[in-house]
C-alpha cells in the first residue's frame, strides 16, 4: 500500500514535471476530510490548544524573575521604554504575587496558579518566545496561523487538511470561544484562510450550540424526517440521471452526515453524563459563573478530544473591551485586580482538564499547548499599576504526548524584558506542534497566490529539547 507521504510526494513530482505544460485546473491539492497518515510515526494524534487572549503576563505567571522583585520600584533600563504600545513606561514593577517551587522539578510558579503549579512536572515551558507585533489582533492571528495578516489558515485547519478526520460524525476542528466573547481578531483565529472551507473550525461552546444544528422548532420530528427522506429520493433520482457526476452523490452523503451530527453533537455537549466528582474536579459548578462556564468548556474539550476531534482551540477570556484587562488578560492599568479575577477562572478548570485527561489516558496521544499572543513589560505603565505589551518576551508551554515534562527551554533576561537565550518564534512553536503529529512542517503546503504556503511560512525549527 502506498503511504500518504509517497502519494503527496508523487503528486508533487507531477506538478513539477508539468509546470509550464499546457494544463488548466489540475493542482492535486488534497481536498478531503478522510483520515490519512502523517509523514512519520506521530507522538500525538490530536491537539488541545488553550489560548489566553489579551497577552497573559509571563513574569506574573510562569517566568520567575527574582532580580525584578529585588529592583521593583527602581528606574528601568532605558531600552525597556522602546517597545511601548499605550505610552511611556514607569519604574520596574515586581510581580505582586509570590512564586513557589513546585513538583520534583522545583519549577517556580506563581502562587496565583496553585492547581496548575501542581502539574509543573508534566509541563515543558518555552520561556523565550517572541512575537512580530505588539498589537493583540495581529499577534493572536500570528500565534494561530503563523502570519500577522488575516486570511491565512489556522493551525487546526492545516491539521485538518494534512491528517483529516478521525470521526465521521463530528467536526475535525472545533473552536471553543469563552463565554465572555471571541478573542481579538475573532474568527481569523480559527479560519481556514485559503484552504477549502471544510477545514475551518466549527465554533461552539457549552453555552452556545452549533448553529442550525437542530431542526426548526416549527417543524415536528416526524415531518422533518419525512422531508429528509423525500429530499433523499429527489436527489437519488437526480443523481441516477447524471451518472459520473460524483459531487451529486457527495452532497447526498453530506446530508446523511449532517443527520448523524444532529444526533452525535448533542451527545457530546451533554455534560450531565459526567459524574459529580468529575464536574467538581473541573469546577463546573463553581459559584463564579465565569469560572463555571470555562470549566464546562474544558469538559466539552475533553469530550471532543476523546471522540477523535483533531484540534480543539479552547479560549480562556476574550477580546479587548472599553476597559482594558476586564474581559481578557490585557492588564494595562490594574494588574493585581485583573489577574486575581482571571487566574481563578483559568487555574482549577485547566488543571482539572489535564488531570482528567491523564486519568483517561488521553494525554498519551494528545498534545496540549498553552499559549497567549505576547508578554508584558517588567515595568509599570506610566500613571497606572498595570503593564504594557511586550512582544519581545513571552512564555508558552507544552504537555502531553511526546513532551518531556518538568523542563524549561529558553530564557528571558534577568528582568524578563526580552528573550535572550534560545529564542523561540511562533514558527518554532508550530513546527514543534506539527512534528509531534508526525508531520514535517516544510512539507505540509498549499499553493496560493504565487507561493506554496506553509503554517510556518519560510521559517520554523522543531524545539527538540522539550521532546520526550
Amino acid at each position, binding site marked *: 500500500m*502506498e503511504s500518504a507521504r509517497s502519494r503527496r510526494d508523487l*503528486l508533487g513530482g507531477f506538478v*513539477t*514535471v*508539468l509546470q*509550464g*505544460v*499546457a*494544463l*488548466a485546473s*489540475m*493542482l492535486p491539492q488534497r481536498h478531503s476530510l*478522510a483520515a490519512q497518515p502523517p509523514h512519520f510515526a506521530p507522538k500525538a494524534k490530536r491537539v488541545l490548544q488553550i489560548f489566553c487572549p489579551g497577552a497573559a503576563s509571563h513574569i506574573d505567571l510562569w517566568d520567575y524573575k527574582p532580580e525584578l522583585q529585588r529592583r521593583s520600584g527602581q528606574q528601568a533600563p532605558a531600552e525597556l521604554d522602546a517597545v511601548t504600545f499605550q*505610552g511611556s513606561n514607569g519604574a520596574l514593577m515586581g510581580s505582586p504575587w509570590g512564586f513557589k517551587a513546585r513538583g520534583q522539578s522545583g519549577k517556580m510558579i506563581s502562587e496565583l496558579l496553585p492547581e496548575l503549579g501542581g502539574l509543573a512536572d508534566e509541563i515543558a515551558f518555552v520561556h523565550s518566545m517572541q512575537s512580530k507585533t*505588539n*498589537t493583540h*489582533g*495581529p499577534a*493572536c492571528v500570528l500565534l494561530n496561523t503563523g502570519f500577522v*495578516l*488575516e*486570511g491565512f489558515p489556522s493551525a487546526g485547519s492545516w491539521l485538518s487538511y494534512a491528517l483529516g478526520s478521525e470521526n465521521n460524525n463530528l467536526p475535525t476542528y472545533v473552536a471553543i470561544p469563552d463565554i465572555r*466573547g*471571541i478573542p481579538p481578531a475573532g474568527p*481569523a483565529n480559527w479560519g481556514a484562510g*485559503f484552504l*477549502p*472551507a*471544510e477545514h475551518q473550525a466549527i465554533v461552539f461552546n457549552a453555552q452556545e450550540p452549533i*448553529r*442550525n*444544528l437542530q431542526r*426548526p422548532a416549527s417543524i415536528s420530528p416526524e415531518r422533518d424526517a*419525512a*422531508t429528509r427522506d423525500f429530499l433523499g429520493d*429527489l*436527489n437519488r433520482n437526480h*443523481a441516477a440521471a*447524471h451518472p*459520473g*457526476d*460524483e459531487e451529486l452523490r*457527495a452532497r447526498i452523503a*453530506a*446530508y446523511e*452526515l*449532517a443527520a448523524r*451530527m444532529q444526533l452525535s453533537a448533542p451527545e457530546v455537549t451533554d455534560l450531565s453524563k459526567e459524574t459529580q466528582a468529575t464536574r467538581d474536579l473541573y469546577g463546573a459548578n463553581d459559584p463564579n459563573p*465565569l469560572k463555571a462556564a470555562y470549566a464546562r468548556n474544558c469538559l466539552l474539550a475533553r469530550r471532543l478530544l476523546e471522540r477523535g476531534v483533531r484540534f480543539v482551540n479552547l479560549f480562556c477570556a476574550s*477580546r479587548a473591551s*472599553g476597559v482594558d484587562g476586564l*474581559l481578557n488578560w490585557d492588564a494595562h*492599568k*490594574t494588574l*493585581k*485586580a485583573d489577574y486575581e479575577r482571571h487566574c481563578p477562572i483559568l487555574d482549577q478548570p485547566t488543571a482539572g482538564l489535564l488531570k482528567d485527561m491523564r486519568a483517561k489516558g488521553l494525554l498519551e496521544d494528545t498534545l496540549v499547548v498553552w499559549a497567549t499572543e505576547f508578554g508584558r513589560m517588567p515595568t509599570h505603565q506610566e500613571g*497606572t*499599576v498595570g503593564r504594557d505589551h511586550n512582544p519581545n518576551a513571552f512564555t508558552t508551554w507544552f504537555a502531553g504526548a511526546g513532551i518531556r515534562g518538568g523542563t524549561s527551554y529558553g530564557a528571558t533576561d534577568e528582568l524578563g524584558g526580552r528573550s535572550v537565550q534560545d529564542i523561540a518564534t511562533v514558527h518554532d512553536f508550530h513546527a514543534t506542534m506539527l512534528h509531534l503529529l508526525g508531520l514535517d512542517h516544510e512539507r505540509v503546503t498549499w499553493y496560493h*497566490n*504565487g507561493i506554496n504556503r506553509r503554517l510556518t511560512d519560510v521559517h520554523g525549527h522543531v524545539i527538540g529539547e522539550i521532546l520526550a
Partner: protein
Amino acid sequence: MRSLALGSPQTQYRSAVAVTDRNALRSIARAFLPILALAIAPARADKASFGEDILPILERKCVVCHHGDGAQNGLRLGSTAGLIAGGKSGPAVIPRDPESSLLLAKVGGQKPEMPPAGQPLTSAEIALIRDWISSGAPDDANGPAEDSERTWWSLRPFRVEDEPAPASLWERNAIDGFLLRAMESQGLEPSDPSDRKTLIRRLSFGLTGLPPEAAEVESFVNDPDPEAYARLVDRLLASPTYGERWGRHWLDVARFGESNGYEQNHLRDNAWPYRDWVIRSFNEDKPFNRMILEQLAGDQLAPDDLDTQAGTGFLVAGPHDTVGIKNPAGEAQKRANHLDDMIMGTASAFLGLTVHCARCHDHKFDPISNEDYYRMQAVFAGVSHGDRTWDDPARVADFAAASERLNNQINDASAGLEALRKAVAGRVDASRETILRRYRPRVDQSGTEETFDPVAAKFVRMRVDRATGNRNRVDLDEFAIFAANDSDRNVALDGKATVSGTRVDSASPDTYAPANLIDGKHDRRWISTNAMPAWIQIELAQTERIDRIEWSSDRLGGFGGRFGPPQPEEYEISVSLDGDLWSTVASSEGRLPFSEADQERLLLHAVFDSGERLRWDRLEAAQREAKRALARLPKPQQAFLGRFQQPEEPSFLMVRGDPMNKGPEVAPGSLSTLSGLLAEFELDPDAPEAERRLALAKWIASDDNALAARVIVNRVWMHHFGQPFLRNPSDFGVNGGMPSHPELLDWLAHRLIHTHDWRLKPLHREIVLSAAYRQSSTFRKDAAQVDSDGVFLWRYPPRRLGAEELRDAILQTSGNLDRHMGGPGFRLYRYTVDNVATYYPLGEFSPDTYRRGIYHQHARSVKPELLGEFDCPETSLPAPKRITTTSPLQALTLFNSAFVVDQASSFAAVVEIESSHDEAGFVEAAWRRAYLREPSAAERRSATEFLAQHGLEALSRAILNSNEFLYVF
C-alpha cells in the same frame, strides 16, 4: 464513506479519483501525459532541443537568479553561450561531457544544491538536460541569442495565430475551432447541443446570477426564431442584473470588504459607493482599461464626476489596522502592511503578478525585483485608508462657506471672551484665594465623600445631572453607604442596586452590571448608558441610620492621567424610607468645579461687574449657538475611496522588508518585469502624488499590455466554464504554469483590445454563442477516461451554484427577491462595538435582508449565514478563484436555517396562488417554479403523496435543498 466532502472545481467531476489513490494517479497521468507530449513535442527531432526542452526548464528554475548583469556568481543560464561560458566556478556545461558539467552536479543528487528555493528539478528534467549535453549542447533557440533571457510566455507580446478554419458542422465560431483542435489532439469529441430549457437556465445564471422566470423559459423554448438564443444573450447582457453578477466576481478579486479587519474590525458604512461603481461599470460596459484607470486614478480623470471618482475605492478596499501604537517601529510596520495590501491588490487584480513576493528580496521565481516592489510602493506612498468627501461640488462648496461663516463667529466670540478675561485678570489674581476658599474640594476619581446628619434610610439615591468632562455617562467602581453608629460598616453591601441604565456588552452582559457598585471591591465597574441624568438607587437590606456616602471611579489608579473615567460632577443624593417620599441629604452644591476652565469661569463671574457679566454671557451664548449650528450643518456625503496626500519624504527600498531599515532611495516607476511588453516609466522621487497613480494606471491600461488582457480574459473564461485557462487566475508567473489553451487565450485577449476596444460584453457574447458553451453537460465515460477534469471542454462542465447565486435563487423562487439596486447594504449580523467590533449572527431574517447577495455588507472574517457555508470567500485577501466545497454544515444550514424555512413558506404561498389554490396543481406549479420543467409521472405521484401527508411548505423545503435546484447543467 471515504470522504466527507468533495471537490474543488478542479476535482469535483473527476470520475476516478474517489476510488483509490492509485487510480487517481493513473487518471491524472492519463490526463497529463498526452498534453505533455503535445506541449513539448512540436518540431521535436530525436534529440533534446535547447529552445524547446532545456530553456523552459532553466527559465522556470534557474534564470530568475542567473540572468543579466546582476546574475548570481556571474552565471547566466538563459542561453547556451552563457551556460558554456559559466560563472565564478567555471563552465556550467561542457558539451558532450555531462559528468563534468557543473550544472548537472548542482541540480542532481539526493539533496540538490540548486535551486535554493522551490521545487527541485525532476529526474525527467535532469535526463533531458543530460541528453542535450551529451548531444553536444546544440543552440537552436529562436530569438535574440545574446543571453536571450527569453521571457515567460505571459510577459511576451501577443503571438496571434489565424483562426482555425471551420472543420466541422459543430463549430459556431472561432472559439470552437481552437477548442476542437485541442480536443482532436486528444482523440476527444465535443458534445451535442443542450436543449433550450437547460440552456436558458445555464445562461441566465451565467450572465445574471439569477434563474430565469418560468414565463421566460416558456417563451424562449417556443420561440421559432433561429436567432432566439442570440437575442436572449443580448437581452441578458443588457439587464442590470448582469452588473450585479459580474460585479460580484470582480469584488472577489478586489478583496472588497466593508469593515476594517484586524483587531477592531469596525464597519465601513461608506464603502458601498465603490461596490456600486463596479456594478455600474459592468452594466455600462466601460472598456476594461478604462476601469483600470478609474480604479487607480479616477479622482484625476474626472475630478467633478462622482461616478468616476468612486473607482478609487479599489485602492483601499483591503484591510486597515486602526489600532494606534505608540512607537515608531510599530506604526511603520502597520503602514508598510497597508501599502503591501495596495501593491498586492493592484498587481494581482490587473497583472496577475505576485509582486508582494518581492517585498523582502527579489521574487524567487519571476523577474520581479525587490526594487520593482518599492517602485510600486512609491506610487502608492500618498494613499491612505479613509473616507473622503464624495458629493455634489455645489453642496460641498455651500457646506464650506457655511462652516467658514460659523467658525468665524466662534472665533470672534473667543476673541471677545479672551479680551474680557484679560481685562479682569488683575482682579481675579487679587481675589483668587479668597474666592476658592468658599468652596468645598472638587470631586475626585479616587474617592469622593458626602457626610450629612444621621438619617434613617431604606433607599438611597444619587441622581447625576452632569458628569466630568461633560461626558454623557458615568462610570463608577464602587458606591458605599456607611452606618451612622458604626462608621466602617458599609450597609450598601447587602443592598440591591438599580440604575437608570447600564452599558450592555452582549457577549457578557454582566460586565458593567450595577452589582459591581456594591460588591465592596474596585476592580469591576458600573458604566451607565449614554444618557443624562443617570441615577443609582440602592435599596438597603433593612432601614439603617446612615451619615456618610462615598464613591469612586478609579480607586485603583489604573486609568492614569488626571481625570480618569467620567464621574458625577453635578449630583443630588436623597434618601427615602418607602421609596416614595424622598428627602435630599447632600448635593454637589458648593463644590469647586472639576475642570480648570470651569474654575476659571467661576473666578471671572465672581469679579465681573454686571456689564461685564452681561457681555460675557452674551458672547458665550453666541459661541454656543454657532457651535450648535455648525454641528447641525448637513455634512457632505463621505465615501471610503481613499485619501490622497503628497508624501512627506521620498520612498526607500526597505532592506529585507524591514520598515525600519532604509536602503537606497527609489522613485515611483514601472515594473521591470514587463519591459518586454511596455515602455517603462520612472518619475521624480518627489513627483506629485496623483501623477504617480495616473502614470501607473496608464502604464497598466496600455493597449500594448497583453498581460492585462490575458488576465481579465482568463477570469471571464473561468466564470463561464468553471475553470480558467490558467489554473491560478492571479498568478501569471512561473509558478502559475502554462494555460490549457494558449492560442485561444491569446486570440481572445488580442481581440479584447483590438476588436472589442477592451469591452467585455462582446467578449461574453462570443463565448456564450460558441458551440462549446451551448453543448450538453452529459457525462461521457469514454471522454472522461481521457480527460477526467474536462480540461478540454468535451462537455459543458456542470457546477454548483455559488453562494450568492444560491441565496438569490432561493429568494427569487420564493417570490421574495428585493431587486432594489445600490446604496448601503444589508447585514446578516447584529453589530456591536465596545472598543472592538463584535458580530452576532441573526436568528431571524427580516425582509430587509431579501436583497441580492452582492448587497450584503461583508465584514472581514465574519462568515454570513448561508453565504459563508457556501464558500463566499473571506475578504482579507483577494480571492481570484472560489473553491467549491460540499460539507455537512451546508446541509445543516440549508435544511434548518430560519431563512430557508421562511423562504420555503413563501415559496409554498406563491405556488398556491399560481395554481389557483387547487391542490391538484401544486406539484406542477412547484416544479415549474423551481426546476423550470414539468414533473415526470413518477415525480408527480411521489410528490403528491408527500404533499398529502406533510403539506406544501415541507415539499418546498425539500425542493430548495435539492441538487436539481443547486446545480447548473
